[in-house]
């Protein structure tokens, strides 16, 4: 596998590093989760929601991988699968070269320490009956720290996320603002000294000014603690600001992946193009009037045949309905490379525009 071209931080000094800088921190291989739908007289399974359907990608040490897509595309399910909060149907996780869950590989407990998640909804992500200091100290206690050292750790983390432990330590979640709660959420996720933080819409519910503060905090923490982020959001501006690489999901599948500039400046997949066109521009003159993405996404229960985007794609042709376009081998890709699952970018796919865009990069 090629050396990462844009590894933003050196990871060699981290004692937790086992696989060396070239080894991706996390490899996700063919992850799949279908949710059964039950109905009818006897409550039999009649269909499945294909929430995450054969998703593969990797995360390099020290990078921020942004994951974008419309709501319902499977982003949050993917996050919960990575955290082992819901059982997967199929797929593998490789953490720094070790297979997770296999007898000789990384035990689940190690994964838990290495991988932590910051949740979206700040109203339900903190136990309303626990002072926040105890919420943060819970993780270390579970992992065997004494009450005293867990408390000291919690207070140190509160300082780190910009909350005065004397002032806030004994407060309850309902006494905090949204931004403060999200800081507590981050502190709690950091309490187990993780290497990878999954941020699931972590700033989406905040006011713009608070959002900026929290994003800056995340950037600082990443530098200080040598972290790697998976940043899930529907907000394309924020993703562009924070990410090194971006992965675009549509109906449970990866449709495009590549470096942030490549995705934003030269989107290949018509879905990514449409998403980017939807953004509100800072320049009022340049704002779009017509919606480039018409209608709701089709149901993930019975996704369209062939390319899942063909029902809404402006360039749809017969081949799109007949054959699903391949993304390419994402696990063998150079992190600087840009891939899209669209017939138009694959020469010889049979799409009339395919020849014109013969090669990517």
């Amino acid at each position, binding site marked *: 596998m090629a050396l990462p071209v844009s590894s933003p931080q050196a990871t060699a000094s981290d004692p937790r590093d086992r696989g060396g800088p070239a080894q991706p921190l996390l490899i996700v291989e063919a992850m799949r989760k279908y949710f059964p739908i039950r109905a009818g007289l006897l409550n039999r399974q009649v269909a499945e929601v294909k929430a995450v359907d054969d998703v593969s990608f990797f995360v390099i040490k020290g990078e921020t991988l942004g994951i974008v897509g419309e709501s319902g595309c499977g982003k949050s399910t993917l996050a919960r699968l990575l955290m082992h*909060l819901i059982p997967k149907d199929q797929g593998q996780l490789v953490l720094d070269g070790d297979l997770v869950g296999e007898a000789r590989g990384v035990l689940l*407990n190690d994964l*838990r320490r290495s*991988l932590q998640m910051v*949740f979206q909804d700040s109203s339900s992500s903190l136990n309303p009956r626990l002072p926040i200091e105890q919420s943060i100290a819970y993780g270390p206690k*579970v992992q065997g720290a004494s009450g005293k050292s867990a408390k000291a750790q919690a207070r140190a983390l509160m300082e780190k996320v910009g909350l005065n432990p004397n*002032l806030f330590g004994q*407060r309850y979640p309902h006494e905090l603002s949204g931004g403060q709660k999200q800081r507590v959420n981050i502190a709690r996720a950091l309490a187990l000294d993780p290497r990878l933080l999954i941020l699931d819409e972590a700033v989406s519910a905040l006011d713009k000014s608070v959002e900026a503060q929290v994003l800056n905090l995340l950037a600082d923490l990443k530098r200080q603690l040598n972290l790697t982020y998976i940043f899930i959001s529907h907000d394309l501006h924020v993703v562009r600001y924070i990410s090194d690489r971006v992965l675009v999901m549509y109906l449970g599948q990866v449709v495009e992946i590549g470096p942030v500039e490549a995705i934003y400046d030269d989107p290949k997949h018509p879905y990514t193009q449409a998403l980017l066109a939807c953004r509100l521009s800072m320049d009022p003159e340049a704002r779009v009037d017509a919606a480039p993405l018409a209608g709701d996404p089709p149901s993930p229960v019975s996704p369209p045949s062939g390319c899942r985007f063909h029902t809404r794609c402006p360039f749809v042709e017969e081949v799109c309905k007949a054959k699903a376009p391949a993304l390419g081998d994402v696990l063998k890709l150079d992190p600087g490379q840009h891939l899209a699952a669209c017939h138009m970018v694959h020469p010889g796919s049979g799409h009339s525009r395919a020849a014109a865009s013969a090669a990517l990069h």
Partner: protein
Amino acid sequence: MTDATADALRDLPARPAPTVRVRGYWGSVWNRLRYDYVTLFCLALILVIIGLAIFAPWVAPMDPYKSSMAHRLKPIGYRNYLLGTDEQGRDMLSRLLYGGRVSLTMGILPVGLATIIGGLFGVVAGYFGGAVNMVIMRTMDIFFAFPSVLLAVAISGSLGGGITNQLLTLTVVLIPPLCRVAETATSQVRNMDFVDAARSTGASTASILFTHVLINVMSPVLVYASTLVSVSIILASGLSFLGLGVSPPTADWGLMLSTLRQSIYVQPLVSAIPGIAILITSIAFNLVSDGLRQAMDVRA
């Protein structure tokens, strides 16, 4: 701001950090209750009634079992019988005080037992879901197919009278509703992100249940349990009324009501007294649980 003022500010003695008055959950509940005078009054009333029952041997003016043919069914205020006498000439006030011991026990103890047992089943069903939930909740559904009074009469009628059987019956009758409330509350809490956050730390199920689930399930369950105390008192007195409670010489409000029923033509007022005791106690418990519900902000 000029550099000079900034320096001046920096030189000011550091003010002590403001102390934060922290009021936990129960503190804020109490703070709301403090101004709810109806609830406070009823709470005090309940404490008085319980106190009188506990200290009945010291408080009661006469022996509750000493009957007297000469003084049968005397009116309120007759000689030193403050509340008159019953059909065997026993002092009503003393019997009422002693009777409170059985009646209050039958109101509180079954609710306590059912809260523990039903709550446990409900939390387990709500947290684990799936087949465990199916088995527990469908079993409870069968008990819900009986109106509570009917279920109580059915079980008690088969088991026969006596205080243990009555206790057992009431506990069994109260378990299903408490289990259902605990199950609903638990499955709501279970889907909250903070439970997932706790799971992602690698915590054991027991630790999550105790630290994160129980503490949040407790207040709706306790509020609901408090509404059941008056239900339990009325059910118990009903069973005693049917002869399915304590055996005759023992004083019990329901049983007193039953035996005095024959005397309504002679002493209507005295015959109504045990019912008034039940009514006052049950109103007090109902109003306290209403107040608790509001103070704890639990939806019905």
